[in-house]
């Protein structure tokens, strides 16, 4: 429909498949902007933590994580985003505002929900050099002993606020940054990855 045609990513035009940076050998990392991600803030109401968690369990079969972890439920993931706060994430290609519309009734009176799908750009970085690339901007420890698949952290990357979570042991990471900073963050990421070679598939 017309709606889809009009949407524009903050990285529009930059995200072209191909090999960049160092050309020799296998690329150190692959980079991708994730499309069709639905995001929403979920913040528990006063004294409703247990009920909100039950509601999530009932509707999505998931326990809301109480530590900086990512939990996967039916068609939705919950990333811890502060005490009593989560970033709900859907990969179902929802339309703008749809995630809030789905979550609001589930958490009615138990948690406040606010759509964030358009407020963040979500990037994926994967490959053997992913940790080295991220070390150039992230102050947190991503060593496998300190940060594992399913872990998430809110921190700052190259002076830009970011939430990161690890997907698998490749390692693959995903990062959400404010949309307005996406281009600056992309500069940082691609410049940092250049010495290892990077690829967009």
């Amino acid at each position, binding site marked *: *429909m*017309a*709606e889809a045609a*009009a*949407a*524009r*990513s*903050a990285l*529009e035009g930059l995200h072209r498949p191909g090999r960049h*940076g*160092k050309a020799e050998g296998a690329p150190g990392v692959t980079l991708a902007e994730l499309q069709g991600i639905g995001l929403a*803030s979920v*913040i*528990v*109401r*006063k*004294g409703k933590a247990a009920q909100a968690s039950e509601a999530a369990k009932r509707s999505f079969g998931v326990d809301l994580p109480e530590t900086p972890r990512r939990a996967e439920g039916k068609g939705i993931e919950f990333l811890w985003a502060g005490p009593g*706060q989560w970033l709900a994430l859907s990969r179902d290609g929802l339309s*703008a*505002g749809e995630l809030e519309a789905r979550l609001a009734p589930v958490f009615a009176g138990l*948690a*406040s929900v*606010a*759509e*964030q*799908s*358009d*407020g*963040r750009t979500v990037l994926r970085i994967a490959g053997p050099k992913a940790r080295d690339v991220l*070390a*150039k*901007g*992230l*102050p*947190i*420890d991503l*060593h496998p*002993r*300190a940060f594992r698949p399913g872990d998430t952290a809110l921190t700052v990357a*190259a*002076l*830009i606020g970011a939430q990161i979570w690890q997907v698998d042991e490749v390692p693959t990471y995903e990062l959400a940054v*404010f*949309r*307005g*900073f996406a*281009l*600056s*963050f992309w*500069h*940082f990421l691609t*410049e*940092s990855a*250049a*010495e290892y*070679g990077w690829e967009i598939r």
Partner: protein
Amino acid sequence: MSQTSRLASGGLVDRGRPLSFTFDGARYEGFAGDTLAAALLANGQRLVGRSFKYHRPRGILSAGPEEPNALVELRAGARREPNTKATTIELYDGLAADSQHRWPSLKGDLLAVNSLLSPFLPAGFYYKTFMWPASFWEKVYEPMIRRAAGLGRASGVSDPDHYEKATAHCDVLVIGSGPAGLMAALSAGRAGARVILCEEDFRLGGRCLAEDRRIGDSRASAWAETVERQLAAMPEVRIMRRTAVCGTYDGGAYLALERVNDHLPVPPAHEPRQRLWHIIARQSVLAAGGVERPLVFGGNDKPGVMLAASLRSYVNRFAVAPGQRAVVFANNDDARRTVADLRKAGVAVEALVDPRPDAAKPGDLRLIQGVVTSAKGGRSLEGVEILGGDGKAESIACDLLAMSGGWNPSIQLSNHLGGAPVWDETLAAFLAGPLPAGMQVVGTAAGSLSLADCLRNGGEAGAKAAEACGFTAAPEPVPSVERDSNAVSPLWRVKGSRGKAFVDFQNDVTTKDVELAEREGYRSVEHLKRYTTLGMATDQGRTANVNGLALMAELTRRSIPETGATRFRPPYAPIAIGALAGHHRGKDFRPTRLPPSHQWAEARGAVFVETGMWLRAQWYPLPGEKDWQTSVDREVKQVREAVGVCDVSTLGKIDVQGTDAGAFLDRLYCNTFSTLAVGKARYGLMLREDGLVMDDGTTSRLAQDRFFMTTTTANAAKVMQHMEFCHQVLWPELDVQMVSVSEQWAQFSIAGPRSRDVLQRIVDAPDAIANDAMPYLGVKDLTVLGGIRARLFRISFSGEMAYELSLPARYGDAAIRALMEAGREFGIIPYGTEALGVMRVEKGHVAGNELNGQTTAGDLGLGRMMSSKKDYIGRVMAGRPGLVDPDRPRFTGFKPVNKADRLRAGAHFIAQGAEATAKNDQGFMTSVAHSPILGHWIGLGLLAHATERMGEVVRACDPLRGGEVLVEVCDPVFYDPKGERLHG
């Protein structure tokens, strides 16, 4: 003939890989594994620089980062780097270096005349000499001093290379890879700890590389290689060569500089030249070794006078014999090693001069119990004069003097957090005092001069550090080594010296300067330093500080600890500004935040302005418009006459929910929000707790328990933090949740008499926004452009009928294009922040210039907004007498009496007839604009008793830019004072 001083065999250089380089334009050859200093010495080049003040010929004193003399300009053109130490520059093929600080040439430096003038250049000479006349300072003295002094030249052009910053985490950080450091890393690594081993040199091993010794069954250098291989095989051990740890910070944080590609002419594509590391370590082992002290006697700076242990480095590591006939002058037992190594390299050792009465005779060598009083020679050492303990003087011809005054442990990094070093009488050296949490000091850095101790202590420290991180660890078995003797007896200066005896080589500070400082009362170590500049050069006094301190102690008849202690601050080694900036230079100096219409505005040729991190369109010039004012005037007129659109997405937007959301906002703002009807917007004013205005913005009620709040662009983060404070710290009992949705929504202001016409073209249900259906301050959820969920606010900053359209940011680009298309027939234009500002001044709205942190709501004419029925932030303090004083300047408008006059923000108001003095100051102009509607400049400002002075003419004085304008006090609302246009 090349490499005349290179030994035929031995050393750790690769004779199979010759490297070509130039120094002062002459071509030389060295080998892979050389430093520039080693290669210069291999080629018999011992004059490499001129000294700072006296332009004395200088050679190579040391073999490491303590080098004060051999500073060169490395590379050429944009990559030229001044003041690099030849002793740490790793030789590469094609290296080009120049001596610096000489004119016109190194051999014939005319400024060496300074040496003859030296009686007139004592310590502190520029404090005394260049004082009068004062006007001479800037034009004559300073340029003259700058030409004569200073060190190398900066390239003067932009650095073409890139630099990076990175963070690394570990359990155990080992600083230094000598015997102690290697053992520490090995012990911690074997336990499974995450270890980072940092070595400043390009090769691991420290003194293992420099000494002709055995560890276990192998040469020390081979042992180091074996350990390196073992460490490299451990997955959790990271070896960082060419990495100097430069600073220790609280909580186990360290700063380190990795010279990733300084050993290449140009960094490989995509690679940085240097990388600055933040290392976060739970434990650290400082094994940084030590620096040998020079002896202080006449002419101790002549090329050919070298530190004895450094000489051993050149012989053993680099296979260079820097002379043919040597004298060794030392106050400690290390001298035997020096003698043996020199002899093995074929250098004739004429004598060992040792001041200690009990010095034992070293085999067949001539021992002179006494001191060297003077080194002779011009550009190179020719001989020494010796005074025996028996009073007999003699001269010995030689081209090399190896001197050793004992060792200074390298404790800098133990001292960065303030723990004062402690004097050790036996070692005659400062040792680390109270240590930073988690740090251990081992090896020579801890005062251990015996190899066996270094190995054992290193291993124990590594194991202890790993245990402290929760690992089970044991120290590595200590390999067997030959016993060594390290007795030392201090000799701080040679009495009866002849000629200049240097304490600080790099800053040309002599014993006479220290004596002068003492005579003139600069006796504290801090005064000594500042007065003589001792220890203030790029080497930070590594070879000078302790000698200088000891000399002052002797002059003042105090002990060394009574005199003071050397203290260190980061950085341990110089760090290029480029490395400190890393990725954040040029356009990446700080992140840029782009609103959703940015690409569209860019294509349209907008001029941008930075507001905080945001880049906003300032105006949109059309072809043929001569200046910004033409464009801005057009934009304002077009909005007032037709319609314009402006991206206001940069406003802070906060989603506030919860059963107590209304009550919370009542406490946050000075006016009331709990009474706001759903579907309505209200202007809000927020105070700080001290009663002054903090921020303002429009807040809308979306549901009984949900508000959509906006803040100014500049204060968005500050307001969010303030709200979290109010909620978490002050009123945790309230059920309220808040989250920033600033970037979720693209927001456009559509303003002007035709704004509704335009919007009705893109709104899916046009009737819903008819004037009656959506009056001023109405808020509605609706869809636009065929189903896109959006929200429309009928609010105005321009005074015109206006709306703000909010829609998911992904549609921001589509929306601006659609609005422009839909508005074409109504004459729509995009307008920028300048036109926005002009229109708000015309309407007398306050903005950042008025919300300056010094104004109250009352000052701004908004006192009526302050509710008297509730508690809110700033309520009580706003009532303080000083803040409700009727004499406080109040917000009002100004227009020039002569309509052609330009107004200036910042001009101060003075009553007519009064003198323009601070005492007569009655306030100042906060904002000005050229009003295209009125055809003249208008201003807003704060003026004492403004309300009673309507129509009065005052002087707007602008002494800063010069000029004065007569202005008439008027109502701040210049345009449509009744506000009829808002309602369409």
